[in-house]
């Protein structure tokens, strides 16, 4: 079987429709489980008190904001190298969700920062690079919306994504490279976690929920984009015959 056949909109559109309810259900179930563990089981933090529970949305949204951008950069490569139509559509479908995740990460971070740092915002390396990530998302969406020729818009957007991807490792390593007010990574692949296991479980469940949600939102949006772009084709018109 040729896996590239799924890059054809007539093949991907029904597949996305079949996958969508599963990802949506998984997002809801994982979010309910994560909130139950986060608020019902995880203990109060001995230093920060109850306010630390913002972690259950702040960290997953920050991870997703970075990860979605990396995925978009991957699709940008496919757009530029193989001129795959679906890859460009996936970039467009992912961008608003990535931007929303960045906004959630920044705002929940500000709300968390006030009681713990005494400030809503500081020009810290982690915060500033995450703000730049939000601007990259907004810039990408503005750029592709501003160019009428779809193919040119896709290619220009893909270039911007590839240039901006350098910001993602800067965000991730900023807490190591510079002295920042933002705390270091609580979870790492190479070290044991620096938090109670129930806190970690809640955070990971919420992170999985955020993944499922982002996939569901992207699948939903890309189906609309496919309909808009392919509306003059016979296969789309036959869908609603």
């Amino acid at each position, binding site marked *: 079987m040729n896996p590239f056949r799924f890059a054809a909109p007539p093949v991907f559109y029904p597949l996305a429709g079949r996958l969508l309810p599963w990802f949506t259900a998984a997002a809801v179930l994982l979010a309910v489980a994560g909130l139950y563990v986060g608020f019902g089981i995880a203990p109060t933090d001995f230093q920060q008190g109850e306010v630390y529970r913002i972690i259950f949305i702040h960290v997953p949204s920050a991870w997703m904001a970075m990860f979605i951008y990396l995925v978009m950069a991957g699709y940008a490569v496919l757009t530029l190298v193989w001129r795959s139509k679906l890859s460009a559509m996936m970039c467009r479908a992912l961008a608003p969700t990535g931007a929303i995740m960045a906004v959630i990460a920044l705002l929940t971070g500000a709300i968390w920062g006030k009681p713990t740092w005494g400030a809503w915002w500081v020009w810290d390396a982690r915060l500033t690079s995450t703000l730049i990530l939000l601007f990259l998302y907004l810039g990408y969406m503005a750029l592709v919306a501003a160019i009428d020729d779809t193919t040119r818009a896709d290619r220009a957007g893909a270039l911007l994504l590839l240039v901006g991807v350098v910001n993602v490792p800067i965000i991730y390593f900023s807490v190591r490279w510079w002295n920042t007010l933002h705390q270091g990574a609580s979870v790492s692949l190479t070290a044991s976690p620096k938090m109670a296991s129930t806190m970690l479980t809640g955070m990971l469940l919420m992170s999985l929920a955020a993944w499922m949600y982002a996939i569901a939102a992207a699948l939903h949006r890309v189906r*609309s984009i496919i309909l808009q772009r392919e*509306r003059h084709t*016979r296969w789309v018109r036959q869908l609603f015959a």
Partner: protein
Amino acid sequence: MLESHLSYLAVAYGFTALAIAIECVVLLRTRRQSIEQVRRERDLDLDDHYESIADPRNEAATP
């Protein structure tokens, strides 16, 4: 202290729920508009010759 912390939590979770709710509403509206656009254009049949289903870009994204 506890009340103040709970209000920070409420604002953070409330904002997140609102952001996700807005995205979901926009997604559903966009989907409905796309379907309406397809139906409207098909009914008007403004474009008599459909793009061929055999558009090479539809067929495969093979390198």
